[in-house]
């Protein structure tokens, strides 16, 4: 299945773009592994993962066209 990955803030700069489509992933662990392989800078970065706009800590199953956001540290307020 395929999911849409969104980068924000400094991750856009590091990834060289704000979105990427990742195919053949069933769950969040697989996706993170794929992303960390492709974008090695993620390894040493502090970021949160949101699935369809909700922060997720566990390894959940993903669904077709889920929106996965990688969120670097917040700076609002």
């Amino acid at each position, binding site marked *: 299945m395929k999911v849409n990955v*969104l980068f*924000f*803030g*400094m991750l856009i700069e590091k990834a060289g773009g704000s979105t990427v489509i990742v195919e053949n992933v069933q769950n969040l662990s697989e996706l993170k592994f794929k992303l960390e392989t492709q974008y090695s800078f993620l390894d040493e970065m502090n970021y949160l993962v*949101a699935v369809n*706009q*909700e922060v997720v800590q566990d390894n959940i199953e993903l669904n077709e066209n889920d929106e996965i*956001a990688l*969120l*670097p*540290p*917040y*700076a*609002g*307020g």
Partner: protein
Amino acid sequence: MEQTKTKKKPKKVFIEGAISPQFIADSIAKHSTKTDIGAHNIFMGQVRADVIEGKEVKAIEYSAYAEMAEKELHNIRESAFEQFDLTCMHIYHSLGTVKAGEISFFVFVSSKHRDECYKASRFIVEEVKAKAPVFGKEIFDDGTHIWKKND
């Protein structure tokens, strides 16, 4: 009566550029007809000209995961209304470039009495800082930048 406890209605949160003193003054003025209010509390976040490694911050360029930020803000608003006896509440945040000395964050709570206002204001500010996916690029006078992080 868009400002009273309309719990489900999505609210405008983001403002392009700085939040002007006029906008804040107008927000205050709009409450003069709500005579059950006895106390307002306003928090404003202003862009600080920090000096980092000898370079001075001239502006912050804000960006956000807007759909998620709006959901988080909605939850924070609901939670504040549940915990505190508020008459109304407004939260605004800038997107785009805000220069040092300008306002980028505006929280405005109103209640019958001061105690609820003080507590709610603090709660909302801390929650927004911790939960709203807003990102800030601190731009120096020489054009370079670093990414800001909340403590």
